[in-house]
């Protein structure tokens, strides 16, 4: 039985590594065909044999960044209200609602936003079709909020209760306790929450696929259409399987895998750095 348990762990580990190779191997012709630099830094123009994924990298970054810009303040604010004002029952209800919100399927966000938000953006800003970085970022920011809220509340609650009690005894109101004690003490946890939000935002496919327009050009502004690495994979699946164009999706997958790996390392570094702070 022990062997079975060890085997299971090995299988899990091996499969995760296998995913990496599942990106590398089929994509190899493309990797060796063009210079990696050209691929990563160039534009996408299959007809002239350009398979650069830079516009997609920019698109992913822009939309994920925008999602963080929208989601982080929103999540922080709700977390603050939960920690400062909600007690006992109220807090449980509030947190339960937030957790339930994290169960809303991504496609449902996309579908509703497609029918309602896109025309709204189109009419409000008279440039563009409504499918844009802005639209995606707004919805994606909302999507990642429930998870971030829970992470933020956990981080703030995790501050040493004795320190919080000391502050209360000295006359600090709940708002003051948050501002002058909890925020600085919970910083590593808050940062982790943001990083996780970033990971979630970069990894999302359908919000950008349905709302960002999927243009292959480099986006010039928030109101313009963009394509993410994830959406690119979804779109190019329909193309002829053996072409180099098709293999560009493996490059996208590869980049995304590396990005995930990097984020995991960053999260660990944040944790580690701040552990040293503790006495």
């Amino acid at each position, binding site marked *: 039985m022990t062997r079975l348990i060890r085997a299971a762990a090995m299988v899990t580990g091996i499969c995760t590594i296998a995913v990496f190779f599942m990106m590398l191997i089929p994509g190899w012709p493309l990797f060796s065909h063009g210079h990696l630099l050209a691929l990563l830094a160039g534009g996408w123009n299959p007809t002239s044999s350009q398979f650069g994924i830079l516009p997609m990298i920019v698109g992913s970054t822009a939309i994920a960044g925008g999602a963080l810009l929208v989601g982080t303040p929103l999540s922080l604010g709700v977390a603050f209200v939960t920690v400062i004002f909600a*007690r*006992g029952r109220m807090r449980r209800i509030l947190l339960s609602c937030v957790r339930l919100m994290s169960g809303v399927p991504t496609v449902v966000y996309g579908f509703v936003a497609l029918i309602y938000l896109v025309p709204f953006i189109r009419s409000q800003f008279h440039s563009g079709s409504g499918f844009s970085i802005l639209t995606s970022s707004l919805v994606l920011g909302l999507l990642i909020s429930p998870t971030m809220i829970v992470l933020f509340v956990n981080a703030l609650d995790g501050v*040493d209760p*004795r*320190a919080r*009690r*000391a*502050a*209360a*005894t*000295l*006359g*600090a*109101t709940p708002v*003051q306790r948050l501002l*002058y*004690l909890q925020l600085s*003490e919970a910083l590593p946890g808050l940062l982790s929450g943001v990083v996780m939000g970033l990971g979630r935002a970069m990894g999302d496919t359908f919000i950008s696929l349905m709302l960002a327009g999927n243009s292959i050009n480099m986006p010039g502004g928030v109101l313009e259409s963009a394509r993410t690495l994830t959406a690119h994979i979804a779109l190019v699946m329909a193309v002829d399987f053996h072409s180099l164009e098709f293999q560009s999706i493996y490059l996208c997958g590869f980049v995304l895998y590396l990005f995930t790996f990097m984020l995991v390392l960053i999260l660990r570094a944040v944790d580690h750095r701040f552990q040293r702070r503790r*006495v």
Partner: protein
Amino acid sequence: MAAKIMVEQLSFSLGGRELLHDISMEVEENIVCAVTGPSGSGKTTFLSLLNRLSEEEEGGEVCGRIRMVLDGKLADIHRHWNLSMLRRKVAMVFQNPDPLPMSIRRNIAFPLRLRGWKRGRIAERTEEVLRMAYLYDEVKGRLNTDARHLSGGQQQRLCIARALAGDPEILLLDEPTSSLDSEAAGKIETLIEELGKDRTVILVSHHEAQIKRVASRVWRMEDGKLSVVE
């Protein structure tokens, strides 16, 4: 002597259990008095009602009245004072020292900055209270180091200094020396005697000797009921 604290028929229950039964007592000003009794009898709970720290936790029910003379006026602490203002006047120190996770200087500055004091005034007051707590000479060269690096006895004196920073009229000490060695405890007992000269100090303690040494009035708490001893 004038009364400082008047507790009238105070009862407290938490989660359905009655922790304090019908407590009535009066404390004068400028005195050190002690509350003693077996573990779990409600001494800490009683103290926490005096600065309303009990309200940080949900579900407690208070009956009866607590009135105090603060800022020269007698008032019901539940009706006429908000939590933050009350705790500036009624300070508390706990059994296990709880320095804030910051430097010694910022620990003492914390309650003062909440009141909007300016830098200069804070610096003066910091030295003042550290001296009062017999801690200044030991830490004067390293005020910016993390307070958690101090020894247990030093941390406790820091907590007392911090509690004194805002010049509270009433000081609540919950077994302040039980986690300290006898030398450190001795220093703090001397400090407590000093403090009793110009403010009201309520000390919860198990040490009979300590109580004999510093307290002029003693109460005994048992099963949530209070009785006078001395």
